[in-house]
């Protein structure tokens, strides 16, 4: 399949009158088919009007789109880590990635830039810590550096998701790339759950061994860690809540990043508190603090984990109550040409983009167009954008 560079945003606004292009099979036409389909899904009622009313330049389309080839090269070479790529290929991939990162930073929105800044701060900090730890032979610093590196890796994945999600849907990913953000949010949530479990294990360890593992030099690193993470919390302060109503895909991603930095700062604060209490002579201070931090992080992450898990598990959209769906089904079956609803399935690609698939048993010989329109209208009110309706005649 040839990939053409979609610098021309006008593609999205082609009029549906060009039927002849349906029969041809170049990549352009498929793009046309998909772009038309997004307008089609708003109901077959007034396609012409919708076309004309659409602005020339979509607000979400940046003026310089990343050429898809870059991502194709990346995806194929980075993930096929079987050593297939020749050395020269690897160098060009690296160059491509550098150029891509630069492009993303220049054209990305504010959150992307902030996240990149945060990641670079973290990387710088953890490398310094690693070097100092290795040079002075302090194991605690090295382990902290490793933990930070893991976190950085996850944040980088979130960044990658933010950048990739702007790509248009293509042949392989017919629903687009926005779902990567949900996936990144889920991975972050998963990591935070792991962290909470490991902190609980550490607390147990401290309880059993009854000796303080945190030497005083770790406090300096904890304080710096806390400061870096607080900067992160400030960057993403709009998402510093436990329960958020997710309206777009980015909401989940930003929320997960924010929770990540909050959890990290709570952990650092816990360590500082533990060492202070220990210096005061409080027994089992470490166990208490670590346990508290573990429980707090777990409770912070749970709603995000459940929400992202639900989207990934193809759960029905949480913002559409079952009663509304049932009401729609009743409305449909109340029509005299519909005998029964065989199958009704709804799921979210990303929060805010609901997809539905419906199968109806209808009386033979009826004209399905008004029925189609009616069903589309009924579900459009609920916010279901993409609906596929199959009418089985008896």
């Amino acid at each position, binding site marked *: 399949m040839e990939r053409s560079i979609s610098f021309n945003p006008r593609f999205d606004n082609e009029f549906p009158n060009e*039927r002849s292009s*349906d029969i041809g099979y170049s990549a352009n036409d498929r793009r046309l088919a998909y772009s038309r389909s997004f307008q089609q*899904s708003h109901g077959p009622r007034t396609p012409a009007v919708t076309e004309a009313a659409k602005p020339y330049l979509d607000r979400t389309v940046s003026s310089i789109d990343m050429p898809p080839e870059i991502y194709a090269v990346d995806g194929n070479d980075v993930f096929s880590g079987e050593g297939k790529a020749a050395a020269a290929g690897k160098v060009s991939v690296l160059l491509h990635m550098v150029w891509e990162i630069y492009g993303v930073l220049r054209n990305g929105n504010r959150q992307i830039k902030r996240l990149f800044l945060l990641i670079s701060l973290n990387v710088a900090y953890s490398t310094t810590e690693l070097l100092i730890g290795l040079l002075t032979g302090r*194991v605690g610093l090295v*382990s902290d550096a490793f933990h930070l590196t893991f976190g950085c890796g996850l944040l980088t994945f979130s960044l990658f998701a933010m950048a990739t999600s702007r790509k248009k849907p293509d042949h392989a*990913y017919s*629903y687009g790339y926005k779902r990567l953000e949900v996936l990144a949010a889920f991975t972050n949530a998963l990591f935070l759950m792991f962290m909470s479990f490991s902190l609980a294990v550490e607390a147990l360890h401290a309880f059993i061994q009854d000796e303080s593992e945190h030497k005083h030099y770790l406090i300096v690193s904890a304080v710096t860690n806390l400061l870096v993470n607080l900067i992160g919390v400030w960057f993403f302060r709009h998402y510093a809540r436990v329960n958020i109503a997710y309206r777009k895909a980015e909401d989940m991603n930003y929320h997960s990043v924010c929770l990540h930095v909050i959890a990290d700062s709570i952990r650092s604060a816990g360590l500082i508190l533990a060492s202070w209490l220990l210096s005061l002579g409080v027994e089992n201070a470490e166990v208490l603090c670590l346990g508290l931090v573990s429980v707090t992080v777990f409770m912070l992450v749970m709603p995000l984990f459940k929400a992202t898990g639900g989207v990934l598990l193809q759960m029905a959209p949480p913002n559409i109550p079952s009663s509304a769906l049932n009401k729609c089904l009743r409305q449909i079956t109340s029509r005299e040409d519909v005998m029964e609803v065989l199958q009704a399935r709804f799921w979210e690609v990303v929060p805010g983009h609901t997809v539905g698939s419906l199968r109806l048993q209808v009386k033979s010989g009826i004209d399905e167009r008004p029925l189609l329109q009616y069903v589309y209208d009924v579900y459009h009110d609920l916010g279901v954008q993409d609906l*596929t309706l199959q009418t089985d005649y008896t």
Partner: protein
Amino acid sequence: MESQTQHECNNKQCDSVEIHHHYHHVVEISSGEASLVGAIKKTCGEASCGFSDDKTISRDAAERKASMRKLLVAVVLCVLFITVEVVGGIKANSLAILTDAAHLLSDVAAFAISLFSLWALGWKATPRQSYGFFRIEILGALFSVQMIWLLAGILVYEAIARLHNGSGEVEGSLMFIVSAFGAYLHALGDLIQSIGVMIGGAIIWYKPEWKIIDLICTLVFSVIVLGTTVKMLRNILEVLMESTPSEVDATKLEKGVCEIEDVVAVHELHIWSITLGKILLACHVKIRQEADGDIVLDKVIDYIIKEHNISHVTIQIERQ
């Protein structure tokens, strides 16, 4: 798809992390048996079959119970062996054995997730979970892969720390014995890993000064494990992203549908998997004004089932 997964599993490191292959893995641990995935594919051949028909459920349930029992046996055996390995590893002061034990631990966790996924597959679809719970398998796999990466990272860190600080004496003979037992019990999956540890143990036994082999083995095994997870991760990602499965040729499908009589165009074609092996399709088919919608619908569904083996389709017929 099945031949591909079988091939992957028969290769070297079939770490039981491969959850979606867990049916095959169970096969390897016990004896040859038709894979569960294959069974589901066969029974869901008819167009009217939903994912959670009563027919399929009862047939699945029996096979699922058998798989669950086998997994339970595997979990118990592995837990027993882990205790042996941990004790042996501490006594011999060998990090490679402890690495093996940790991988076994992750295997156990993976088995546990497999068990949970199998159990969850049996849950009936609810109005809120209209596709059933098949995705849990995939999320479980993602969970175990993340755990593997975490464990590998921890072990690499430990290896480096040991390398840096200088470890204690490593008892070669004990290493050899414990890992020989390990090779026997662990069968295919970690065979190479255990052989490697055996070789390492033998070398250290022969030349006790070369205790660095122990640490090098750990690093090598971690890299191998990470390598095998990358491919699985790719599959998981593709399913979770609702991408067109690689075994379906969407271009050919579209062309084929358009060649059917009375069909003018196909658009909004979405093909995605709910889990590996279960593919769904939804599209809009534009037909000529005067054509009989019912007949065209039957032809299209027939074509898709016969030529592309996708049984769960939803086709919207639109007239020009």
